[in-house]
């Protein structure tokens, strides 16, 4: 019984926050502001818990207690970051920053070059080694990919003036980019509507008797709030207009 109570409460909270955030679409209002500020706190609180139980306790505190004393080094490096708040000693934070930056840069460099540079060149020229066994369509497509990629790169070539052949190539490149952006736009439309559908579907679920009609009641209250506010604002304005 208690359990179902908490679920009903959850449904109300959930439906309420959803509607409050959606109310921004009508206009900025106190309900949205409440939800917005709540979200700031909730978001950071969530991350805090996640880091506390996902990183600090299991990765630092527990191993340290079990005798992995070297872990004091990363903890100190981590704490050094916090000196940012004290300008006089903020230079200490450089130790933490440089560690993170060095590690990130060193890890990313060889991998990026291999996966996103060399392998992409290989992928572009590889089809040409199998021309004999490919259909005409496939041959044309591999040419298009190679030429398209080169033309797009020409568009991003900054240190020469874009005229003559470079201009032509970069113009072709723009069309490839436009097709890509268009396709990407079209595909995203799908994604976003899926999300909205997810929200509507949930609100629909919450409108049932098992959630004590959370959705319709909250919608009515919200609309009532806007109506009241509109009415009061009008009154205030008209009051001000007549000295």
């Amino acid at each position, binding site marked *: 019984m208690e359990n179902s109570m908490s679920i009903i409460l959850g449904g109300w909270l959930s439906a309420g926050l959803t509607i409050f955030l959606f109310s921004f679409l009508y206009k900025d209002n106190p309900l949205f502001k409440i939800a917005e500020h709540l979200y700031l706190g909730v*978001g*950071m609180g969530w991350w805090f818990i996640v880091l506390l139980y996902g990183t600090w306790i299991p990765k630092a505190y527990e191993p340290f207690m079990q005798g992995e004393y070297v872990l004091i080094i990363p903890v100190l490096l981590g704490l050094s970051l916090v000196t940012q708040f004290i300008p006089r000693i903020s230079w200490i934070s450089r130790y933490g920053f440089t560690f993170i930056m060095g590690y990130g840069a060193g890890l990313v460099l*060889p991998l990026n070059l291999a996966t996103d540079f060399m392998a992409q060149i290989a992928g572009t*020229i590889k089809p040409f080694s199998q021309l004999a066994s490919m259909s005409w369509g496939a041959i044309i497509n591999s040419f298009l990919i190679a030429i398209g990629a*080169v033309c797009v790169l020409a568009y991003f070539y900054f240190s020469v003036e874009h005229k003559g052949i470079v201009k032509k190539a970069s113009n072709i490149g723009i069309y490839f980019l436009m097709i890509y952006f268009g396709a990407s736009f079209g595909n995203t439309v799908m994604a976003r509507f899926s999300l909205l559908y997810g929200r509507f579907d949930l609100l629909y679920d919450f409108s049932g008797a098992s959630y004590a009609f959370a959705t319709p009641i909250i919608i009515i209250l919200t609309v009532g709030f806007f109506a009241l506010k509109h009415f009061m604002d009008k009154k205030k304005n008209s009051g001000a207009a007549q000295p």
Partner: protein
Amino acid sequence: MKKTELLLVFFSFLFLWPGLSFALNGKSNIALPLIEDAIAEDMPYDSGGDILLRWPADEDDEGVVYEIYAKTESSENEWKLADSFKAFEKTADKMRMPFWAWSHGSDEYAVKIPIKSVDGDADIGTVLCFKIKAFRDGKPIAESAILCASSDDNWFNLPRLNGLLMVILITAAFFMTMSRAKKKGLFIRRIAGLDAIDEAIGRATEMGKPIYYSTGINGMSSVNTIASLSILGEVSKKVAEYDSIIKVPHYDPIVMSVAKETVKQSYIEAGRPDSYHDDANFFLSSDQFSYAASLDGMIEREKPAACFFMGYFLAESLLLTEVGASAGAIQIAATDSESQLPFFFTSCDYTLIGEELYAAGAYLSKEPMLLSVLKLQDFGKLFMMLSVLIGGIAIALAAVFHCDGFVKGLLDFFTNY
């Protein structure tokens, strides 16, 4: 003297073994023919997890099935089946290795056996023994001698030599450009959206409304954020000159503390340190959508004259720009996150695409160092273009004339091992 003795013992052992093992296993009769020249050795270029078995492949192997049995040298256990495959399935040329690290071809079998698959506790140095058996129609037809070897960890991953060469090449080019950076200005092509920055700031000054500048939602070690900060430096310099107001909401605390310095420095350089306010940079949230919700709220309430979105953005891009557009702001966006470009493109007044973001800092500041780095990036692109054009033609020609070695070599060079 000693050597011959050893050899003798070894050979007698070699010949004795099959008989001995039969005797021990109590199994039947005839000794199987020997699979000759089989070798077990440490798998090269790895971290010591595998042992490599090699033996010659015969042309009349068709229809043969090979089975590999393994055990640790010290254990009393039975032989365990470690691998089994049909003839020609695992020849050495099928091993994923580039030509510079691997010279074995299709006339050899090459099989990698993970040491952990033989014994879960096996480690580097544990001696493992193997036996290869050949079957035809389910009947054993040949068997190898017992081959023992231990794995070792290696100090260089030779197949990745191509990647290393690339890193060295780019580092060398990098230092060369760096050392020449101080020389005269370099040409840089016009970047359309950037000319609008002045207009946007001017408009903000006229209207007496603030300018919002978002540095995106990435950390300090990524290019897009670094690029964004160098643009921020130039923008805030102009803001200081025009005596307008800039607000920079942040997603990442480290980026925020760097941006504070950047903006402050710009005000000093513009000769207006007194107009600088420390709260121009402020932290919102490290949660993507609460960042967006909060920034949306601010834009809606303050109705800024201009919004700049420069850096890395994900789904929040349109959340921000639609609100900015409905608030009537001039919007200039720049991102290298391709998935968001279409949205910036349709909802902003000016959009810098991909790498234009990186170039923008150099374009605005004309700083020699940034310009020469841009030049270096262009060289990288030139390398790619030439590789595709020349490599494509070369590989097509080679394929036509059946220079398979060249084709494989060229592809090997660009493959990631």
